[in-house]
Structure formats: C-alpha cells, structure tokens
C-alpha cells in the first residue's frame, strides 16, 4: 500500500519537474529594442535573446523603435519590471510616458542597481510593455542575475529564518492548549 503511494508521489514530482518551462523570449507588437551592457560589452536584441545572465548593477546603452503610419501627436507610456517570486514585490526597472510625441525611436544610457532582495543565480522574468497610440508592444525574457544564493546572502538568510519561524508556529499549533 505504501509502495503504491510512493510510486504515485514520485510520478507526480517527476511530471512537475519535467514540465518546467524552457528559456525563451517573447516580443509582440510593432516595436524593436536592444541594449548594450557596458560591463559585459554585449548587445542583446529584445526579439531574439534567450535567457540573459546580467550583472546586478550596470549601465545600458539602449535603442527602441516603433512603427507608426501616423507618427504625429501620439501619446505613449511604458515600463519594464522584474518579477520576483511571491511574497516579494516586483521591481520597477524603468518607466516612461509622454502625452504628445512624434518620435519613432529613442536612444540613451540607463543606469540600474538592483536591490538586495533580488535573488541571484536563479531564473527570473523581466517583463516590459509600451502602450502607444500606434500600437501596444509587450515582451518578456528570462534573466539570471550574476552570482549565487550566498552572493547577497541577506534574502537567503531572511527566507530561511522565516521558514523556521513559520514551521515553529505550526509546531506550536500542534501542541495541547
């Protein structure tokens, strides 16, 4: 009887692990984008990049374009966010907006410095969107921040401590009143 449950449980765990998603990048809409990371000296295309391994702090020389049949008098807004596992909040990397623009492209340099709560060495989702009168573009790419769980140990230690704390509370709940 126990062996049957072990086999069923093992099968479920195997299926869950085997169904883990593969690395990919998705970009939809009339936009293109690319960024060159200064410390790496590498350029990544938004539409073609698979999983990126990025530093926690860097300067990015970026270029973004959009196709528009009537470029005059458009409005747009957009943002890039790094999704973290719950209960951690998403990190806003960059945002922009303009109520009246004719521009079809933008270039510049952007400095970023990720906060300590961003886990290192694991796959995260970087998501972006650009909502424009000419059309909406959305994109996502898998990124990994350089380092490992103990490169910036505070989130790891806090997470372990919270697990032990919650486990202790559950243990107390199982004691007699």
């Amino acid at each position, binding site marked *: 009887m126990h062996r049957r449950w072990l086999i069923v449980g093992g099968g479920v765990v195997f299926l*869950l692990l085997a169904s*883990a998603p593969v690395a990919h990048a998705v970009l939809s809409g009339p936009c293109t984008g690319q960024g060159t990371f200064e410390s790496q000296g590498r350029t990544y295309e938004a539409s073609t990049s698979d999983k990126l391994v990025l530093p926690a702090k860097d300067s990015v020389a970026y270029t973004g374009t959009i196709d528009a049949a009537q470029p005059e008098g458009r409005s747009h807004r957009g943002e890039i966010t790094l999704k973290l596992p719950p209960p951690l909040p998403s990190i806003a990397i960059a945002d922009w907006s303009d109520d009246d623009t004719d521009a079809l492209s933008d270039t510049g340099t952007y400095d970023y410095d990720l906060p300590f709560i961003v*886990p290192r060495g*694991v796959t995260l989702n970087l998501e972006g969107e650009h909502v424009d009168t000419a059309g909406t573009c959305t994109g996502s790419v898998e990124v990994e921040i350089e380092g*490992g769980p103990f490169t910036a140990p505070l989130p790891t230690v806090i997470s*372990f401590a919270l697990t032990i704390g*919650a486990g202790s*509370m559950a243990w107390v*709940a199982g004691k*007699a009143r």
Partner: protein
Amino acid sequence: MKRRGRPVLGAIAGLLFGLFLGLDLFILGVVPLDSVLITILVLLGLAGGLALGLLAPFGPKAPTAAEADVTAD
C-alpha cells in the same frame, strides 16, 4: 470531539511555512519561479498546519483524572 490544538494558527503558520519553503527552494535554484511545486507546497502547508492543529496533541494520551484515581486506588 473536543479541539485541543490551534487549527487556525496551524493553518496560517502552515501556509506561511509552505510559502517560505517554496521561496527557499527557488532561491537555492531547486525549482523555477513558475513551478507548480511552489503552489503545491503552499497548499500542503495549509492542509498540514490545519491537520496539525485539529489532531493535536500527538503522542501517547496522558491519563485522565479518573484514570489516575483508579490507578492510585
């Protein structure tokens, strides 16, 4: 059946335990962010904590006062 544990505390603590255990596994690179395993751990934590509170206390039963009296006689 008289409840002798703390099922509400157990459910909340179990839920948090499952959530943080999933976060630990993710931070250590054992499971990906969108793994179903993290959701399952949260649900298992909730169910386990609730069961712990409902079925408490575990281990051999302490003798009741009446049983203790009989033993003394």
